[in-house]
């Protein structure tokens, strides 16, 4: 694992010498990561800047846009409003853990099939959120999916495609479970 020095981890100009960094062990996409990070490192920054998994995006950094959505123990959360140090012993899944270029996740394929993005910046968060929605198993109709995806904004306005993509995968899951 990459070990960052104390000084580069602080990154806050004008602030007195920060306390030393500590060791935080995270399980990300089934792999153990041992990171040397300061306690104020958010889970989002730990994923992107220290574990170098840049699929998870930083949008607003204030829990308002959902671009940073990841799954923790199967539940979707905003990684920007959580400290990495709060997630030792948790099972973290990012977009990199859902699918790969060679083997797309059904949600990734559905997003392509339904034109569910333009710039793509919100897409990893949308897909992780949709996987969380499917894990919860509570949204089935279009109205329910809209309400349960309301924590993910898309500035390109690809909502119609996103809704169709998520609906398709939700429907296929429920027809699977009926079999």
């Amino acid at each position, binding site marked *: 694992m990459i070990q960052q020095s104390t000084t580069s981890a602080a990154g806050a100009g004008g602030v007195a010498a920060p306390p030393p960094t500590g060791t935080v062990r995270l399980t990300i996409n089934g792999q153990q990561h041992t990171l040397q990070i300061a306690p*104020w490192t958010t889970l989002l920054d730990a994923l992107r800047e220290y574990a170098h998994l840049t699929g998870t995006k930083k949008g607003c*950094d204030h829990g308002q846009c959902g671009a940073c959505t990841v799954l923790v123990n199967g*539940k979707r959360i905003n990684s920007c*409003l959580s400290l990495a140090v709060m997630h030792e012993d948790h099972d973290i899944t990012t977009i990199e853990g859902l699918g790969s270029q060679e083997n797309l996740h059904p949600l990734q394929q559905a997003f392509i099939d339904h034109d569910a993005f333009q710039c793509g910046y919100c897409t990893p968060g949308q897909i992780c959120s949709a996987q969380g929605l499917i894990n*919860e198993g509570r949204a089935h109709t279009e109205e329910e999916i809209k309400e349960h995806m*309301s*924590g993910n904004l898309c500035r390109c306005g690809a909502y119609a495609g996103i809704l169709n993509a998520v609906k398709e995968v939700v429907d296929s899951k429920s027809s699977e479970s009926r079999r």
Partner: protein
Amino acid sequence: MNPFTYTSATAVEDAVRDNASHEGAAYIGGGTNILDLMKENVARPTHLVGLNKLPLTAIESTPEGGLRLGALATNADTAWNEEVKRRYPLLNQAILAGASPQLRNMATNGGNLLQRTRCYYFYDTATPCNKREPGSGCGAIGGFNRIHAILGASEQCIATHPSDMCIALAALAATVRVSGPDGERTIPFEDFHRLPGNTPERDNNLEAGELITGLDLPAKGFEKNFSYLKLRDRNSYAFALVSVAAALELDGDTITDARLALGGVAHKPWRDQEAENLLKGQPATPETFARAAAKVVESAQGYGSNNFKIELARRAIVRALKQAAEGSQHASDVFLNSNP
């Protein structure tokens, strides 16, 4: 964020002791509000006591026939809890009306009570704010105040309390259980949050170092006749301009018990017992509801851009009471605001 140290507590006593031993310490549960405030430089703790390993996530029946909600149960786990859905559907609806699924998966019940106002002047450290910097002034009075209070405000502060969950807890007359350096105590929900008065920096009546450990719901849940009506600028993932928690007990068409609390209008969840008394013993008619609504907004005051809230609140109360009397709302897994 400013530098801070972090420890993770595994027992309530350890958390309280660790907090008391650090000057400038704060507790962190889900973190959804305090981390946001720290990024904005509004909150500047020098030490955080992590709570997410404390054994306070249970939701269980009390000997008195009520339900105890652990302070660290998430808002999502609380809303979906079968007992909450069956016995306290008003609470289910209120929780699902707030935030997003992601935030509800993180935010804790204790933290929901402690979230701070979303007044934009409070968040903007370039402007004066008596809540953030006592004595510096109020940017909202005479400024943009569309989201601000119409009831119980002061010349120091017209900020509103932002929670939905707390409006249901006020209507249900919950009790807050706390643990602190001087031991344990309980606080009736109505006495938990404060009006701004001359100390707007204090949102609630917790003493220094006290930690919320749980919320007790009384046995009576108003599971048949209730409504949580939330009015906002967009129909999901937005704070209330006005919200109403209404709960009725009916004997035929006669109201035998009533609860009425409003969100988005005051510095605290605004329960009005005088208005409730105007409902009790009366027929469940639009005229009765209108009298109660008039009572609630009798002392309301607008500050310019929020004047519309007075009429909005009056109408929302009548509508919520009508929905409650009809029994048209039900606990659901999805808050669709599909009210008639």
